């Protein structure tokens, strides 16, 4: 069963062309010049029910525009799409009952009120029966551990607390398909992890299809089974995450802050480590996980040097995408 299908989806915007500076502005005001910008070019998508798909691409690649067309917010310039059986831009309201959306940069929570009030409004917007709404709300409050924040105005919540409330709010009406646009943007590692767990749990327990855009490789690695990469508006890659993991996410960057300064010659030589850089007490190196484990690398340091701090990072999404572009 398909949750989402798009064929030849295209969106073009008319953009004013303007030269730099006041002169450019004046010329543009007197004789405006327009050009057509293709934000999304002829893309085909297929997402099965219950799948978790990452939709990646650099800034301006057309990710958000695609999501907006698939949720009925924008009308496409051409192409067709069905999302849980509806054409988004023609049957927007019917579709909205069946999908959930979380836009990391656009909050649906009322800024001056506690999340509980927004939940109440969302219950009404989706016409949930009162007893069902109360039961569902309690379930999400428990799962998302929202109890302590429910009566605090949203403006006083931390970004992580707010995002947990946002996702819970978008799940209240039990959407079949959840669109997440940068859900972990600006969050710390611990909160990101918790949010990923919660989304994964919803996917497993309710078979919610997840369509996610993110700049965080961790989101993709931990949540998704498939990766779609878009570039210059066109679909560049459609691969299982396993392959991306094997080929691209096989590298981690380790940063170690030692108790005392060390010279590069004193560092342990572990196979699989590359691009080692030493700056004062800080050592930064890349590990190829196909050749050495993180534990193996760290064991070379533990016991020989005092370690004050340690971070293990995925390669930045831009690097992953660059790698993919390089392959194509």
């Amino acid at each position, binding site marked *: 069963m398909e949750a989402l299908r798009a064929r030849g989806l295209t969106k073009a915007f008319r953009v004013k062309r303007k030269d730099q500076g006041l002169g450019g502005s004046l010329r543009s005001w007197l004789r405006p010049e327009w050009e057509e910008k293709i934000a999304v070019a002829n893309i085909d998508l297929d997402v099965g029910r219950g799948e978790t798909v990452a939709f990646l691409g650099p800034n301006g690649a057309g990710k958000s525009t695609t999501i907006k067309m698939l949720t009925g*917010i*924008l009308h496409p310039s051409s192409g067709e799409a069905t999302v849980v059986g509806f054409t988004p831009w023609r049957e927007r*309201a019917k579709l909205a009952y069946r999908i959930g959306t979380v836009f990391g940069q656009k909050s649906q929570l*009322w800024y*001056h009120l506690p999340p509980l009030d927004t939940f109440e409004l969302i219950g*009404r917007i989706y*016409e949930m029966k009162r007893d069902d709404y109360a039961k569902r709300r309690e379930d999400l409050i428990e799962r998302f551990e929202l109890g302590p924040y429910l009566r605090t105005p*949203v403006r006083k919540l931390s970004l992580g607390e707010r995002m947990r409330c946002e996702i819970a709010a978008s799940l209240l009406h039990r959407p079949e398909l959840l669109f997440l646009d940068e859900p972990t943007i600006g969050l710390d590692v611990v909160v990101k992890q918790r949010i990923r767990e919660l989304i994964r749990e919803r996917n497993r327990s309710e078979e919610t299809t997840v369509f996610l855009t993110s700049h965080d490789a961790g989101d993709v690695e931990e949540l998704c089974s498939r990766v779609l990469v878009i570039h210059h508006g066109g679909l560049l890659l459609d691969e299982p995450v396993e392959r991306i993991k094997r080929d691209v996410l096989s590298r981690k960057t380790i940063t170690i802050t030692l108790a005392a300064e060390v010279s590069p010659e004193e560092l342990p030589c572990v196979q699989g480590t590359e691009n080692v850089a030493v700056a004062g007490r800080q050592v930064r190196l890349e590990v190829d996980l196909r050749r050495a484990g993180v534990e193996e690398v760290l064991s070379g340091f533990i016991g020989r040097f005092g370690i004050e701090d340690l971070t293990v990072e995925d390669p930045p999404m831009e690097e992953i995408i660059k790698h993919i572009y390089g392959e194509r």
Partner: protein
Amino acid sequence: MSTGDSGGLRAIAAFLGTCWKINLASALEYRLSFALLAGMMFINNFIWLFFWNLFFSRFPIVQGWELRDVMLMWAIGAGGFGWVNLLFGNFTRIATIVSTGELDLYLAQPKPVLLHVLASRMSITAAGDFVFGLVIFAWVGERTLLGALAFALGLLLAGLLFLGVMLHVGCLAFFIGNSEGIAQQALGSFVSLSTYPSSIFKGAARAMLFSLIPAGFISYLPIGLLKHFDPWFVTAAIAATALIGGSGIALFRFGLKRYASGNLIAARS
């Protein structure tokens, strides 16, 4: 499970009721600000009446208008603007909402977009306008059931006319991009024109007030509806309100097809 196909008027009423409850709760978050803003607007309106009082003390009748008529014109204008701004407080912000991409949130939810947008904000100052209208009517209006009903009809028409006009102006943002400045200017001009006796305008200016800028349908209500009931004027005012409202809704729907969204970081307040 949500009941996507049920809905209907009861569901819309429940949704609007919750929206207004939440708006009020949000406005009451800042107690002092709420009281000050509403109170200041009440006083501001009274100051205008004070100037009109000075004027009419020198010229007791102007083109058939007396001080009482002007007071009722202000009661209808402020009261109409007040209720619509209380219940549908985003009607002055449509251009901003469209041009900054804030419409995304409303489009992603199943309720009628325009209604949802309009009902998602309550203007605090509007409470002062609305109470001012009621106080003036209680002071100089015809305190009978018929008088109260006529005044209520006047408030309804005035409010809907403000809403309809601002809907048209706000929808410009779908077609010309940033029209926030135009919307603010149009609001200011329309409010001003609706608070001057329409009889002082003649010829083309008068024709304009009953067509392109339909402020005359508000400013003439104290005479054509309250003082000397004129069925032709009242019918024309109702028809104009329906036409402006209907065409505004059609324009908004048409505009949605051209909506280009945006990437501004936004929160609901």
